[in-house]
């Protein structure tokens, strides 16, 4: 089964300068995204998970050039997105949409739903104003908003409905790839389920590819085909969802999964409690970024950074435990 690669991220780096003093001299760099690579196949959902500050959102923003990357390439259908001029990039942007976590701040409060939905159609010159109105009604119905509701303002809606508006606004231009940055994280459980179902339905109907960014491991398991686990700006492991959840290789993934609270009191999970906090990304540890907290740490991890490689077919991991040639050296 060979699938088309829609998006290919190669050695992407996003460093933010730290400026101090009156002269705003650059005194250091925060390595928010540090050399990550992954592929996204056509019509699949690829999820990026990790704790706050691991760089998952920065990755999403960098792909869409909301942030200009420090280094690396992003190929969309074989063409490097970073080679486009700003003006040409706008045309491609129609195919690539983004949905954010907070529907309260991502919708202009002075525009009605109708205005909000028409705006992207006119910006991309996809239809005349009259046709655009028809498109608005069609997409509103798809996401579960009634025709009367489209003349209201965002503040008149609940969080779940506002997220429906954001989804409609992203999908009205008929994108191919949608980046969802914590799109359901701010919603209550019962509403979250409604929105997730909607997203899954729409993906099938419009043949969308999703890059799903989330910290919620239960939600990620539900929606994804493949998952990438990030830690401190680096990719630690990528695999198919079931493989990752059932046979995680990286000690970080193992402890992350064991920390999810169970929803069933009769099942007592054995948890791996990690020591300490996530290190400061402006001053990352040497060697493996996880070695300070890793329960399986050995001397080599402190000095040498593990290479991200395919340890089993379709299962990539960055950990010295799986360096085959070095296996004999391990205690």
């Amino acid at each position, binding site marked *: 089964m060979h699938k088309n690669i829609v998006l290919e991220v190669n050695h992407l780096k996003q460093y933010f300068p730290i400026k101090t003093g009156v002269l705003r001299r650059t005194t250091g760099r925060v390595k928010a995204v540090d050399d990550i690579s992954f592929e996204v196949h056509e019509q699949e959902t690829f999820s990026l998970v990790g704790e706050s500050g691991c760089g998952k959102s920065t990755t999403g923003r960098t792909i869409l050039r909301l942030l200009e990357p420090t280094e690396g390439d992003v190929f969309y259908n074989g063409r490097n997105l970073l080679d486009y001029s700003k003006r040409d990039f706008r045309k491609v942007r129609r195919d690539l949409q983004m949905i954010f976590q907070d529907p309260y701040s991502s919708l202009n409060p002075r525009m009605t739903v109708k205005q909000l939905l028409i705006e992207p159609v006119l910006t991309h010159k996809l239809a005349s104003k009259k046709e655009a109105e028809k498109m608005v009604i069609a997409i509103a119905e798809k996401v579960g908003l009634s025709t009367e509701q489209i003349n209201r303002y965002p503040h008149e809606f609940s969080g779940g409905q506002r997220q429906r508006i954001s989804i409609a606004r992203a999908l009205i231009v008929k994108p191919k790839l949608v980046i969802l940055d914590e799109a359901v994280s701010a919603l209550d459980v019962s509403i979250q389920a409604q929105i997730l179902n909607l997203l*899954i339905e729409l993906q099938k109907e419009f043949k969308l590819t999703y890059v799903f960014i989330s910290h919620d491991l239960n939600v990620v398991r539900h929606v994804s085909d493949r998952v990438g686990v990030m830690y401190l700006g680096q990719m630690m492991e990528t695999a198919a969802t079931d493989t990752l959840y059932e046979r995680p290789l990286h000690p970080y993934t193992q402890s992350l999964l064991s920390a999810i609270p169970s929803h069933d009191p009769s099942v007592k999970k054995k948890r791996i409690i990690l020591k300490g906090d996530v290190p400061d990304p402006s001053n990352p540890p040497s060697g493996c970024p996880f070695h300070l907290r890793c329960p399986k740490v050995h001397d080599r991890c402190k000095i040498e950074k593990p290479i991200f490689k395919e340890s089993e077919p379709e299962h990539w991991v960055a950990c010295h435990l799986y360096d085959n040639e070095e296996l004999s050296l391990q205690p």
Partner: protein
Amino acid sequence: MNSILEIKNLSIDLVDGRKTYPVVNDINLSIKKKQRYGIVGESGSGKSLTSLAIMNLLADSLKITRGSIVLDGKHELTKMKKKELRKVRGHDISMIFQEPMTALDPLYPIEHQILEVLRFHFTFSKKQMRDMAVEMLKKVGISRPEQIMKNYPHQLSGGMRQRVMIAMALICSPKLLIADEPTTALDVTIQAQILDLMNELTEDFDTSILMITHDLGVIVEMCERVAVMYAGEIVEETTVAKLFSNPAHPYTSGLLRSVQSLGNRTQSLYSIPGTVPTPKQQTAGCRFASRCPHVMPVCNSSPPFLEIGNDHSTKCWLYAKEGVVNA
């Protein structure tokens, strides 16, 4: 008399100009000594307001209209004077909040903030208090307490700040610790650390916990008993084991179905249709009726809170028949 906190018929109204809207409606709960009690509900269910009412920290626009909150069988908290209350807060009952950064004062080092609690309730010497503070910080798992004491809140990570909050809350060995979404702002690996710590410490300090959360997983990890709140009312109250094995109220079973169907990609997620009614959308009868799959004509009048089995109560007409037969 072994309950540490007894809430009877508590109702809270939101006053908006001349209108009032009920936001918490006639709730009862009783927390025993050393018990870990959970209140679970979605945003707007009134769970946080209930906890603020216990501490008497409600905003001016919110008024307790009815009911009593009794601590340790003797203190009626709703009728206490401000001065008396200040002796109870921090000493008998303490509270930790969701966002430790807003609960800690950014202008003072940690030492000052921990000692403030002690200075207020006791008359120890400064040296004694410092020793107590260092000891407490060690107990919450802070490895370099002397150095942390000199730090300001912004210099600490989220998990560390929450540890400091827990240290401050437990330093007077309170009888009751109210934890309002203590781990919601934290990452899962840090959440696991903090829940573990809270479990350990409350054993050591003989403290009861009232855990307020939206996360059923946290309830499973932490609590023995649980009350489910929906739109200002308690709709179900029982042990955690019973709630999960045998949920009675349609809202509870819907909630459980939607979290438990997560992860099974072959099926679509179970979701409860509709949205939570706001306090301003008052309806006669059951607050859940518009979203309920089992709605009946009788749901137009408010359902009674019924005992449906050993240690298991719910507010739903579905169980009324049996209740009538029993009576």
